[in-house]
């Protein structure tokens, strides 16, 4: 009898070894990531951006028995935002201040550790953070806070190549995990609070040579340039600080962009301010723009569109689902970028109507004033950069939401190169309304919220779904929670001692499934006894 019980374990173990024949991660393996569920090889777990694991050893029947397996400490301050990668038993992660590490994924013991020596005058707007690696061949790739893109030897952590993308002193930095497509390492720049000119770059994985750059703010003579007043395009912002996704059918990248600069003051940059707060469909080989969809035109509320876009298929419909910071849940046609639906998934006061194409239209009264205007959602948005997940089994989209309104007021500010540039002030409207958070399950077919789990305060945790009928997320109070995916019922929780600012992921080694999440300055893994 006992042997029979061991069979599934042996089969899964065989799968692990099959995947580690040469340890080289190829583009084909990334395309076929669903064939090796024990590995997590891209930021969102697959090219579709679903953050869904087909592992089901941990499931709703046994989730109550989950227990910590090991903990890795970076011992660093600031937020730990990494989503680690796991390939063939080795976990690769990045941390605060551009440190990085490779761990034995069964024990958490380091194989190598890397610490970038950063200049003292870097300009990270929002923390000395990094969200993870990309991997190809025997190299792992990361962007740095001093605006370099680097490749490390996956076996030793040694620097293989190191390329300066742009002068960090002008306000540029890199925080997201890159995405590898074919032989290209693709990454978007951060710095929307510094009057930068945003871009998405692609580098040759072997040499670090830059193969293309797409400026997210069009220059003179380019389409979209007319959406900027005067010279405002030169400091137009539109960073691209979250990892995009890749659609192999059309060989196109979907990349999202952030706020125009200055973030909270529209005077001086009249126009739609393309391609800020947009979803861009870029040719993966050339970086050429195929189409764009701008979620928030002429933004004055800091509503970056830097949320992972998720490719979902509903019957014959090939769609992109995007829970936007501005409070609307958009479903777009993947081929054309046309709106299929746009529904609020939180409290929204800035739009009460939609145009002929179904695009929510802003009320004039939502613009910041000298005295201050109350607008929902607030500057932090209904969601922010934390990863959502799409579960193809429940056909539900799960997203971390925040209910908070802010009072937005104006304050002109002159631009100075390399200096923080906001143009106004906003305040939490906290006298009468406490802010709170929730994990929400949205049905993309009708935009309706199927269930909600309320948090006492808003969380910055991403969400993972698994084939075990589970959804995992963390809260601001330090709990890591397993939910029943269909109902939102919490099945298990563990107190990690610090707020979560990262997305969970799943992997397996030696036939055992693990769930990993960063909290505080530690990376936690959980598994069955």
């Amino acid at each position, binding site marked *: 009898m006992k042997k029979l019980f061991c069979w599934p374990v042996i089969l899964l173990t065989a799968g692990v070894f099959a995947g580690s024949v040469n340890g080289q991660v190829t583009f084909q393996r990334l395309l076929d990531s669903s064939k090796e569920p024990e590995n997590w090889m891209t930021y969102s777990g697959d090219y579709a951006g679903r953050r869904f694991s087909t592992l089901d050893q941990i499931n709703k029947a046994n989730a109550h028995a989950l227990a910590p397996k090991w903990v890795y400490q970076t011992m660093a301050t600031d937020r730990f935002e990494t989503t680690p990668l796991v390939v063939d038993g080795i976990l690769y992660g990045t941390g605060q201040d551009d440190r990085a590490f490779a761990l034995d994924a069964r024990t958490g013991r380091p194989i190598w550790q890397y610490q970038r020596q950063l200049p003292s005058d870097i300009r990270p707007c929002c923390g000395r953070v990094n969200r993870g690696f990309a991997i190809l061949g025997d190299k792992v790739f990361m962007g740095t806070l001093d605006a370099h893109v680097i490749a490390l030897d996956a076996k030793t952590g040694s620097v293989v190549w190191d390329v300066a993308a742009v002068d960090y002193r002008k306000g540029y930095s890199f925080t997201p995990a890159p995405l590898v497509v074919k032989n290209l390492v693709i990454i978007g720049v951060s710095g929307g609070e510094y009057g930068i000119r945003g871009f998405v770059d692609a580098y040759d994985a072997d040499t670090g040579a830059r193969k293309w750059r797409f400026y997210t703010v069009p220059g003179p003579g380019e389409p979209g340039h007319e959406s900027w007043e005067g010279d405002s395009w030169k400091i137009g912002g539109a960073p691209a600080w979250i990892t995009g996704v890749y659609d192999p059918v059309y060989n196109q990248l979907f990349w999202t962009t952030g706020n125009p600069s200055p973030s909270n003051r529209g005077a001086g940059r009249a126009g739609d301010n393309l391609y800020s707060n947009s979803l861009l469909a870029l040719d993966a080989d050339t970086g050429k723009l195929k189409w764009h969809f701008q979620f928030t035109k002429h933004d004055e509320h800091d509503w970056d569109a830097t949320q992972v876009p998720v490719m979902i298929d509903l019957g014959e419909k090939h769609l992109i689902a995007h829970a936007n910071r501005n409070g609307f849940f958009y479903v777009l046609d993947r081929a054309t970028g046309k709106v299929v639906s746009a529904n609020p998934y939180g409290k929204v006061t800035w739009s009460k109507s939609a145009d002929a194409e179904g695009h929510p239209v802003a009320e004039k009264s939502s613009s910041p004033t000298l005295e201050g205007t109350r607008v929902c959602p607030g500057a932090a948005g209904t969601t922010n*950069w934390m990863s959502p997940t799409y579960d193809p089994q429940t056909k539900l989209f799960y997203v971390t939401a925040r209910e908070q309104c802010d009072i937005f007021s104006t304050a002109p500010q002159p631009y100075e190169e390399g200096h923080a540039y906001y143009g106004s002030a906003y305040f939490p409207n906290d006298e009468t309304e406490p802010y709170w958070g929730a994990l929400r399950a949205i049905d993309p077919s009708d935009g309706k919220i199927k269930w909600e789990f309320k948090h006492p305060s808003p969380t910055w945790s991403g969400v993972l779904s698994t084939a075990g009928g589970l959804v995992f997320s963390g809260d601001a109070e330090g709990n890591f929670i397993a939910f029943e995916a269909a109902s939102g019922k919490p099945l298990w929780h563990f107190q990690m001692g610090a707020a979560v600012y990262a997305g969970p992921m799943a992997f397996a080694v030696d036939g055992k499934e693990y769930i990993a999440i960063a909290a505080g300055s530690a990376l936690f893994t959980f598994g069955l006894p």
Partner: protein
Amino acid sequence: MFDTKEYWLRRVSFSRKGRIVLALTGTSLAGLLAMTMVVGADDKNPFAGDAKAAKLGEFQFRINCAFCHGLSGRGGGRGPDLTKAQKRHGNADAELFRTISQGVPGTAMPAGTNGGIGVGMTDEEIWQVITYLRSVQVKAPEKPLGDAAHGKELFYGSARCGTCHMVEGRGGRLGPDLTVAGSVRSADSLVDSVRNPSRRLAQGIKEAAKEFPQEYETVTVTTPDGKKITGVTMNEDNFSLQMMDADEKIHLFEKDKLKSFEKSRESLMPPYDAKMLSDKDLNDLVAYLLSVGAK
């Protein structure tokens, strides 16, 4: 972009002073001259009485200071009312300049230039803010300060504040310790908290890395054995509750084991209307808290 917890405090990422040094080592002669004019003039406001500078200062104030001191400088419930003629940490130009540029050690007031608050300010911009503050200060009516000694008598006597509030080690624990209230809150906001305690609940425990501190919310639970307990939340998450009852007893509960759990933003503190506490007595009480805060 801004993707963080304390998104207010996000706003300075590097030293503006450091940038000035860079500028000085650069090639801009005009910039060099401009800097030289301002740097070193720390004792006297070069823009005194200049209405245009006051307007620029108002914008700087909004970006850098208003989160705590309120849009009009009258105190936002977090920082002192700056329209008062007498500033706690010194009233002379040079003292104000020092307070803004260096912050006030031991208080929530960070340095205005060096990784502290807002977008950061140059010396010139700090002087503009001071010019703005002088312009609103003139217009602000000065409230006569009450009798602090009488206020102390009230606090521990007929007003019964000391039943729940501690000041300098003496008093109760159910409400927030008010020892520093007079140094971080404006007189107006203290008055408001006495008259309308539920309008803005006080902040309690702040956890490392968590965005918002727990507030003094009222909680009523029914225990598994049917006992009803009312008190304030000391902390709470999705699964557990730590609370204090009116007898200062701490209770620890797992939420799913409670028969009932109700939270309210109606403060346990009664609203003190003019019948319970006259305007004069309230003024004395506030004078007492301000005098303790000034120590």
